């Protein structure tokens, strides 16, 4: 694997990460926000595996495995919360959820 390729992977990961982040900031659907967060985590996973390849070490693999495990658990909790909050509303729009402020 040529050295330039590593940089390519890194750029891809950064762009994916920032896309996910922008999704959190601009979208109002809680589901899409959650999916955007998954994008960010996925980008981090790509980064870990790229670096694991770079160093030929297994730590990156374990780390990205953890990302999948934790991501699944996190998605379960997050989806449960979303269902609790938005099941009774007409529109699933996070801007409506603002009883707490100040």
């Amino acid at each position, binding site marked *: 694997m040529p050295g330039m390729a590593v940089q390519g992977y890194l750029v891809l990961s950064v762009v994916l990460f920032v896309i996910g982040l922008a999704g959190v900031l601009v979208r109002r659907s809680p589901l899409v926000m959650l999916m955007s967060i998954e994008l960010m985590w996925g980008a981090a996973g790509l980064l870990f595996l790229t670096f694991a390849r770079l160093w030929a070490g297994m730590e990156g693999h374990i780390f990205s495995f953890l990302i999948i495990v934790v991501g699944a658990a996190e998605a379960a909790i*997050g989806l449960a919360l979303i269902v609790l909050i938005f099941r009774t509303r007409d529109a699933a729009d996070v801007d409506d959820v603002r009883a707490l402020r100040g």
Partner: protein
Amino acid sequence: MPDISDLMQIAPLVALAAVALLVIVVDLMVPARMARGTILVTAAGGLLVVGWYLLDLWSQVVPLPEFAARALAPFGGALALDGLSFAASALILAAAFFAVLLSTTEQARDMSGYVSLMLLAALGMMVLAGTSDLMVMFVALEVLSLSLYVLVAFRRGDAKAREGAFKYFLLGSVAAGLLLYGFALLYGVTGATKLAGIAAFARQGTIGPLYHAGFALVVIGFGFKLALAPFHTWAPDAYQGAPAPVTAFMAIGTKAAAFVALARFVWAAVPSDPVLAAAYLTPIGVLAGVSMLVGSLGALFQTNLKRLLAYSGVAHAGYLFLPLMSLTPEAFGQSLFYLFAYLCMAGGAFAVLVARSVEAGGDAGAAADAAELSGWRGLYQRRPGLALATALFFLAMAGMPPTAGFTGKLFLITGGIEARAWWLLAAMVASTGISAYVYLRVAGSVFRSPEAEAAAVAEMGPVPGAHLSGSHPAGAVGIVAGTAPSPLAWERVAVGAVLLLAVAGILLLGLFPNLLLPGLQGLLPVR
């Protein structure tokens, strides 16, 4: 390769996990009528056992005078059981113990999940404070975060609880993503996931922009959990939505664990080059200073006590960083001492909140009302002991001598002077000035009463309980003893115990800081 002796070294952690599971089993086996009590007693007893385990391990393996230099490193160095982690673990266990005692007033019936999650969160915090491996840090952080997301939303049918949990969850996941990305970048540059490897790189390697970015992202990720401004926005909303015991636990435990983890990380990852080290510490100082100001300003006009304490927690998180600016081993002791003081002050304040909501009826609506400061007026006329305790907690937060808040602040300032962090000290002065006003407003409001109310009380003669608490030197006893027996009697005992412990802690740490301080200095093994 791990072996069985590793397991012995993490006995407290294993025991805590076992108690968390046991609680659920108990719920399944005990008749529903007795379930709540059994669960809470199991959890409180379990925490005491774990604490005993911890102290036993601490004293056997690392005798006090020399523990600065020694540390256990089971699992190939994944855990770093040094003085820092033992002290933080003791703090976290105490916070969990407080929270469990305060939880006796929660009226919901499915307590097993709640208590189990609380214990698991404590486990996550202890691991987070005691690890030197990025992987373990990440998973431990998630264990505590996921538990807390659920605990915040625990109150069934309370829309605000759900909302707070959702906001905490969403922002927390984003912050976890940032932290993860930072870990990935550091791994990429250094090839290590252990802090030792990162520290070696920080001393010898060529430090490039990717390392800088990774460091920044990790600081931000932990800063979020610490509620440093501008990453604090979740805190007031989540604190307000959560049941008061959970808020107390979050405020104290998470802060301690995340601070220790961040301090450990900074201790390892800041480059040895002094110019670069200063450049690394500057933004951390800026975050701390901004937190102090934002925290005290945000609390200025709050009428909801939970939000007020959330903002005050933001400011306190900033104070913790004053000694850290010098990055000497003593600095960690000074910050940890303040965390212990904060345990007593915030724990006590939340206990008062719980006591108020019990007084008001104990359901969710009453709890929400109890957090509103307007209802605190005239508390002195009804419950003098509780009012005096309240005043003590908030005056301690304001740094009034001779309380723990004062000694803690004095040590922090000494550390800040040692570090020559003048502008951060200036920020602290401004923040202290603003927040003195805030805390005094709370402490004063319990003594203020409309004239009519005072006159009415005078006509009725001594209110029930007033004479009892008046005759006890420690006013907090009156909360326990001075109220008529009611179905909530033993809940009152539990809350009163927390109040007494907090009062005792504030006074003891204020008058005799040497009980704790020498044990907290030089906590880190040599880098």
